[in-house]
């Protein structure tokens, strides 16, 4: 299996749990970096970059909502 396919399978696994399990979502919400590292293992450099930007437990729901822009990214 190519390295990318392997990684994609790990991402799929995370997303499936994320959709199915509210407790896992709460876990991710509280500690996204720890939860992702637990499933993905060692992160690549580009993964370290974007994972660093994920909100953690110190970010309130109001702050999360506020930081989402209301500018559409384009439908198609």
């Amino acid at each position, binding site marked *: 299996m*190519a*390295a*990318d*396919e392997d*990684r*994609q399978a790990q*991402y*799929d696994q*995370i*997303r499936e749990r*994320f*959709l*199915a399990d*509210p407790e896992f*979502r709460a876990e*991710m*919400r509280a500690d*996204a970096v720890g939860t*992702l590292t637990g499933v993905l293992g060692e992160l*690549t450099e*580009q*993964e370290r970059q*974007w*994972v*660093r*930007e*994920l*909100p*953690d437990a*110190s*970010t309130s*729901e*109001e*702050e*999360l*909502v506020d*930081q*989402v*822009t*209301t*500018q*559409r*990214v*384009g*439908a*198609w």
Partner: protein
Amino acid sequence: MTGAQQLNTGWCGDAPAALRASLADLTGPAKDLLDEAADHVAFVLRTRAAGEVAAVAVPVAVFRALSADAIPSGLLAAAAATYVAFDVLDDLMDGDRPACWSERRPGELVIGTQILLVTAAQVIARGLPPLVAERVSGVHRAMLVEVADGQLRGESPLDIATTPDDVGSAIAAKSGALLGRLAEIAAVAAGADEQVAAAARRFGRNLGIARQHVNDLTELLGERTSDLRNGTATMVGAFALQGRAVDARQRLLDDLSAASVDPARRGLLRAELGPAIGEVCLLAQLHLGAARSAAEFVSGARIGHDGLAELIEHTAVTLRSNHGR
């Protein structure tokens, strides 16, 4: 050269020109109708960020990441035709006035989109070697079938039994399949092997799903009320329903419906949906993470210096937390 310069160079004028050329045999009212479609593509590409027109920008970026050749005009024309056709059809299904053909009657819109989709199928493989052309045509048909499936699934409104998996499957079939398959087509046209073409599809698919989630969020948080009015099954609604008892689910559905016509209730609802909104932000980030991983495989050492990274950034910036910057 930066990623932004990579993505915006040249093709914004080439795509509408290629679409016009592919429609050159039309005459009479059909020619007028389709000229308007080409004018619309030209206007959109001239006035908006390329990342907003993903059905064209994604195949362009993938082809450029893999080949130094000129982008095939058939691919550009097909991508532009696909962009307009699905944009109009989506607006028709949502009951919104489309940006293209805004003064035309519904029947004209249906005929126009039919001509665009047939034209895209005819020209998408034009000029490619026979075996490559056959592969491209097969992927294109798969895209149309998957997107049709996703659009029809999207017609099922949010109800008390809707699960996050239902919504995720519909979005993957619609927005994910469109960009995923167009990315795959571009990779095949660029001569990529099956592993790279599959990675290109994963890039487009994950980007398309993330964009749909972000668009659904921006609609809920902004002034547009199409999703609330239509009872559209979005992931925010599905997450919010998942944690509730049956009677509380029906109350939430009633609140969502009432909020479509009451700005004050929309404000209250946004606060109530805060946890689900935060979860959808994380989900979109996960899809963008998967898109980055696939893009890295497609682009190799050029990742971060090509259009793939720019397309991801176009969506990521809408979700970026100040934390960690």
